[in-house]
């Protein structure tokens, strides 16, 4: 078996820019706890964290204080949802939302209104959201790019509708951050949650919550500020950053932002779109049922005839292809796509995915469908 062909980047990007690993290793040898002690190792940690925060702010067109570090996107989404939604509140969500959105809403006891539309019809999604935005809506939650099907929702239009209706918008940018352009200033969103370890190419254990409005802490504890008070600080980012941050991870994320900022604008998105388009056609040619459409991002679900999705993924794994099968922690998306019963096999690309890897992948699939 040759080298691993990794096509599970929607779960996490395995191959990172080399400077990310170097930054993590450097931090583990030099950085103490930021915002606590006044010594050199604490100062180094402070500066690195601040550097990452300002790079993130620049990348997403917002202010550094509005960038709050989280463990992952799920953590950020929980903060955002719990800041806005109470029991019985009406919340509009897309039919593509991940359990990171639906589970907190269920736990709170929100009244959930699910918007559905043909997967790859952005216009239909926009109209469906318009119809769903009724008076009394407490919040809207939108998955920018589906982690199951790769369809891209018309975020700018939905954001405008929310602004016009004065309804706070929460964006799940788990599959779009680092790939599609995002401006917090233009969106005017209440919150945007992103993982550091997928399209942003940082280490696992990092994430961002960009805050356009006041947030309620999920965790209470030490912040290195106003410590005589028994209340969490009423200012960001401290309000949402209790406890020790993942400093090595954030150093790596800072290096990742620097890497991303140096890439030609939109290059990753354009490349992934082109690769996915070609991949979809080739999978269909070898007998797969493929879920694809216009404007699709680098995530592609498919099914193989006569093969259970998990078994197929296992067989492909034995051939050196890393994919994810099943429901992808997004049963709602599978309901919307009519794949709840079967699940799907998902291939997801990154900027490091090569055409040769995709050739080998197709070859392996053809062996199964042969």
């Amino acid at each position, binding site marked *: 078996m040759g080298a691993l062909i990794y096509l599970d980047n929607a779960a996490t990007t395995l191959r990172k820019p080399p400077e990310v690993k170097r930054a993590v290793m450097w931090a583990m040898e030099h950085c103490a706890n930021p*915002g606590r002690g*006044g010594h050199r190792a604490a100062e180094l940690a402070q500066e690195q964290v601040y550097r990452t925060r300002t790079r993130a702010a620049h990348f997403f067109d917002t202010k550094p204080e509005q960038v709050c570090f989280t463990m992952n996107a799920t953590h950020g989404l929980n903060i955002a949802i719990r800041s806005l939604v109470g029991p019985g509140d009406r919340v509009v969500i897309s039919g593509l939302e991940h359990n990171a959105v639906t589970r907190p809403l269920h736990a709170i006891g929100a009244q959930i209104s699910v918007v559905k539309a043909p997967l790859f019809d952005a216009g239909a999604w926009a109209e469906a959201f318009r119809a769903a935005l009724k008076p009394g809506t407490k919040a809207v939650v939108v998955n920018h790019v589906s982690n199951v099907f790769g369809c891209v929702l018309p975020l700018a239009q939905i954001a405008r509708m929310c602004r016009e209706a004065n309804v706070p918008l929460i964006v799940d940018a788990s599959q779009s951050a680092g790939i599609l352009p995002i401006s917090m200033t233009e969106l005017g969103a209440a919150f945007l949650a992103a993982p550091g370890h997928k399209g942003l190419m940082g280490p696992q254990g990092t994430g961002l919550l960009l805050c356009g409005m006041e947030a309620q802490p999920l965790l209470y504890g030490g912040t290195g*500020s*106003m410590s005589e008070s028994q209340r969490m600080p009423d200012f960001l980012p401290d309000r949402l950053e209790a406890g020790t941050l993942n400093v090595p991870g954030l150093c790596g994320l800072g290096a990742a932002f620097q890497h991303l900022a140096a890439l030609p604008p939109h290059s990753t998105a354009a490349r992934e779109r082109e690769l996915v388009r070609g991949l979809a056609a080739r999978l269909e040619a070898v007998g797969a049922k493929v879920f694809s459409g216009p404007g699709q991002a680098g995530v592609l679900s498919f099914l193989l005839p006569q093969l259970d999705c998990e078994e197929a993924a296992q067989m492909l794994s034995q051939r050196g292809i890393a994919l994810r099968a099943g429901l992808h922690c997004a049963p709602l998306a599978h309901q919307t796509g009519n794949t709840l019963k079967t699940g799907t096999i998902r291939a997801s690309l990154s900027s490091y995915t090569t055409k040769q890897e995709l050739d080998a992948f197709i070859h392996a699939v053809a062996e199964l469908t042969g």
Partner: protein
Amino acid sequence: MYEIYLTLRSVTVAQRARDVCNRVGIRCVMQRSPRALATNGCAYALRLRLADARQAQMMLEREGIPVKGIYQKKPSGEFVPWAP
């Protein structure tokens, strides 16, 4: 001698304030706020020269950076509130 202390509520605010000062050529040192000045607990301070205090105050106000207090450290070690 950096005898002026601007106290700020958090490390992030202090870092922003430092960057603003540096941008206009005001030399300053960021450090944890002396305990005597840290009302409400832990805070950070920017230390700078008396001659730069007024300009720093104006710049930070213009940038919307909240300053908790401005103090001058006397030769005796005592901190007294400073005003332009």
